[in-house]
């Protein structure tokens, strides 16, 4: 199919788009939440893939090749539209406060959320993740969010495994600090396990 598409067969390329668009959409959904943004990114990915088909030598899988193009295309889109707003205390709404409280009180069991609560959480996630550079966001979402291995992230991005580890470490630290800033600004100081407060 890839060879036919390489030769300029449009119907073969249409079949590639049909078969792999769920994968490309899933990759683009890591970066964008708006349907229109995901669709635009996916279209750009396939247009780029068509022009680069000649460079696909068939050593790896077509899916892996497309995943890499999708990842790099989405990173480029995010980089070009980069604006990292500083998180402020007023950013935390009452609903978000409540959602965060739920998470802390139900650490052991996974709390069940309504559709509305999912939206609240996803909005909060977007704003917290916005403090990170796109590359760090990607590493964190893949490893911590999707349970991907360092090797899988390395294959999807083309980065070395040590670079992936460093990015994930740095991203965890930054996102924790952002969360801490957000919570301390809202006067939330619940103690897990009843810390007694003699800081070292």
């Amino acid at each position, binding site marked *: 199919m890839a060879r036919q598409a390489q030769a300029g067969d449009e119907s073969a390329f249409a079949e590639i788009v049909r078969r792999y668009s*769920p994968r490309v959409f899933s990759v683009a959904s890591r970066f964008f939440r708006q349907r229109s943004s995901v669709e635009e990114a996916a279209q750009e990915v396939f247009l780029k893939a068509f022009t680069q088909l000649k460079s696909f030598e068939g050593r790896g899988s077509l899916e892996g090749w497309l995943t890499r193009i999708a990842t790099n295309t989405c990173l480029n889109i995010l980089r070009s539209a980069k604006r990292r707003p500083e998180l402020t205390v007023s950013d935390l709404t009452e609903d978000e406060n409540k959602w965060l409280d739920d998470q802390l009180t139900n650490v052991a069991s996974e709390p069940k959320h309504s559709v509305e609560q*999912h939206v609240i959480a996803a909005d909060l996630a977007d704003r917290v993740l916005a403090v990170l550079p796109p590359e760090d966001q990607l590493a964190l979402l893949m490893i911590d969010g999707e349970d991907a291995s360092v090797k899988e992230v390395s294959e999807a991005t083309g980065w070395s495994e040590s670079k992936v580890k460093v990015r994930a470490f740095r991203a965890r630290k930054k996102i924790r600090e952002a969360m801490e800033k957000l919570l301390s600004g809202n006067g939330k100081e619940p103690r897990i396990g009843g810390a007694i407060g003699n800081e070292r």
Partner: protein
Amino acid sequence: MVKSLELEVQSAMKDEHVIEMLDSVPFGSLSKEQLTVVESHGQVCVSCSNAYRTAILASAVMKERLQSAVEPPPFFETRVLAGLREQQAVENVPALVRLWKSAGALVSSMAVATVALAAFSFAVPSALTPVSDQTASAYSAESVILDQSGDDQMTYEQVLSTMYSDDDEAK
């Protein structure tokens, strides 16, 4: 004996901060033993307790972020192929034509403006308002500034004759 061992373990836990551990692995991958160590240390260390709390929240937030994956719309491939044809059509047009398409309107309007200005500057004034040399020199800047004794100034005799000739006429 057992109690002293427990105390030793607790003391070791107190000494070692767990923030590093929280940052180096995904929160979801922490084993039960690691979580026990983190929680025990959190009881005596506020900064690690806060780090643990925020790690829980960060992990939950990220899981939520990935819940809403967008599905491809029906006939997405048709849209991609249309985009592809559009791209190919743009690429097939020669570079000069593309340049003309984007900048043609601007270049044309500039050319029209230049021709109009040239016409107004050279052709129209000479055709509509012929200026004689005499008139031009009479009101030139030099004559106004330097020629203080104007021709239309009357002499004393002229003034007197004008005054008395009027009186004679009245008589």
